[in-house]
């Protein structure tokens, strides 16, 4: 039917008018379509959705408090505790469900902080150049000299192991790569003709940065944001593993950290939360690869 209509239209109007270009596909939709073509990206997205659904719906399907003592310590996986119990006799499956909420939230929020700081610093440095750039690059260099995990450990030790401190610390130490990337993009775009035209038309700096340059610099920033989530999840795990987790909030890292000395007595108490972290980071990096293919078609990985 539609083919007939279109062919009819063609017959009536043999010369397509210049003003009637094919309906433009929005860039977001085009990117989504491209993303769906990447098998690894789709696999990552499905895995990520499963993990999110598990932590969101888990409490209804499996209503056990992760901090409650439900049985003997080190009970092997069995009917009443499908994934066994930990060194205090707490349910490992319940820990996975509730711990996932904390871990994934920390990952997402810390990545957001990372990107906001990184993009702000990078945009200012790249857009203004000159002494602003020199100063911001020096600050970034200072942060790059300190191993991020170590720096985060010091911050959390000093300001106390709370979920909020941990999230802030992760964001505060890992923004440099996002900043470097944004700076490079802004420097590349800054002198292009359409930016110059905008500037000549009287656009202010803030308007230029936010409305003109940033949207064009967005693709690589989005990719690095996806990757930042994975890094932040690994960070939370590492900090908790070293005893810097929030002891009042169950998280995957905390489960591993608290049970690591008993790995020979109860492998399940560390293996499952570790596998959860592994799957989450894997999912996020697969999605990141897919997003990369979708938004940077020219820079597709070989």
């Amino acid at each position, binding site marked *: 039917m539609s083919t007939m209509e279109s062919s009819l239209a063609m017959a009536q109007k043999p010369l397509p008018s210049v003003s009637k270009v094919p309906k433009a596909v929005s860039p977001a939709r085009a990117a989504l379509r491209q993303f769906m073509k990447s098998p690894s990206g789709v696999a990552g997205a499905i895995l990520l959705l499963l993990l999110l659904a598990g932590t969101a719906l888990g409490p209804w399907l499996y209503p056990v408090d992760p901090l409650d003592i439900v049985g003997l310590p080190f009970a092997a996986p069995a009917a009443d505790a499908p994934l066994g119990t930990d060194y205090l006799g707490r349910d490992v499956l319940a820990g996975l469900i509730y711990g996932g909420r904390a871990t994934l939230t920390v990952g997402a929020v810390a990545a957001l902080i990372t990107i906001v700081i990184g993009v702000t610093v990078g945009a200012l440095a790249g857009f203004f150049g000159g002494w602003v750039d020199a100063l911001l690059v020096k600050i970034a260099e*200072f942060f790059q000299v*300190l191993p*991020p995990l170590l720096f985060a450990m*010091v911050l959390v*030790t000093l300001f106390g192991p709370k979920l909020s401190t941990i999230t802030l610390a992760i964001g505060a130490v890992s923004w440099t790569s996002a900043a470097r990337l944004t700076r490079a993009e802004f420097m590349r775009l800054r002198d292009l003709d359409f930016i110059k035209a905008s500037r000549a038309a009287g656009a202010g700096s803030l308007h230029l940065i936010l409305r003109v340059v940033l949207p064009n610099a967005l693709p690589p920033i989005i990719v690095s944001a996806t990757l930042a989530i994975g890094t932040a999840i690994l960070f939370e795990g590492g900090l908790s593993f070293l005893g810097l987790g929030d002891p009042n909030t169950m998280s995957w890292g905390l489960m591993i950290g608290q049970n690591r000395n008993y*790995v020979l007595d109860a492998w399940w108490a560390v*293996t499952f939360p570790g596998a959860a972290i*592994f*799957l989450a980071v894997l999912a996020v990096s697969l999605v990141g690869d897919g997003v990369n293919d979708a938004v940077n078609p020219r820079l597709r990985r*070989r």
Partner: protein
Amino acid sequence: MALLTHLFGKLANAVALLLAVLVMNFCLIHLAPGDPVQVIAGEMGGASPEVIAALRAKYGLDHSLLEQMFTYLGKVAHGDFGYSYYFNQPVLGLILQRLPATLYLAAASLVVAVLIGTVLGVISARRPNGLLSHGVTVLALAGHAAPIFWTGLLLLLLFGSVWPILPVNGMTDVVNPKTGFAYAADVAKHLVLPSITLGLVFVAQYSRLARVNMIDVLSADYIRTARAKGLPERVVLVKHALRNTLIPIVTVVGLQFGNLFAGAVLVETVYSWPGMGRLVFDSILRRDYPTLMGVLFFSAVMVIAANILTDLVYRLIDPRIRAGAR
């Protein structure tokens, strides 16, 4: 001469950066909630007001902040990084005592990572769409996603209980101490699992990097020339292609020293390796701030040293940089 000027500039920059790290260290300790003296007193299990006043005078906390900072910087200039109240000895000595173990671990892990990474990358570059190549890509993704402490614990589980052929704890055999050559062999045996655990994290990146570069290099004209001359494939790969593939890897290795060090903290904690990582772990547990700050400073020193070294090596491998001005 140009190299010397270049090096001098780098060193001046390094000194400025380290000074900034020290100032930040100082500020962090004073920004942290809680009076440092109260913390110290707390660690000692409580103290009377007189003792607290004495501590305040001893640590110079009765002076203004600016004065305190200059005192602190002056002390550091003389190699005094404070006193660990948990280990009960000067921080500097403590760090120097632990540094070699961490450097062994870091060096061994780098060898593991570069060797496995390059080999995997080169193998997969030869047939970029082959099954093996896809396998390497999957492996690289998995290696990146696996938390280092988890891999460590799984290997510990495997070799600690299922298949006990390798030591999983410490750096030497405590029960039967060895000397001379046997001692070195003993350390090497204890080093196997920690260095594999730490190295695996970086294999992923290096193999990906080696693969991409190798594909690039293999399509270059000079490789075609080498093949046309009738050189055996092995010579083309190793002598001609690999050299140019290694340059970006060296750069990344140097720039990643900080991550390597942070990874060592986790790995040393898993295997009770007596290096700086263990030291960090213990000082976190005891809230031993002077030690923690000392380690942070030393890790900055090592990262900067690694960066300068990378820069030098890079100049040695790549003649283009040696010839032209930076």
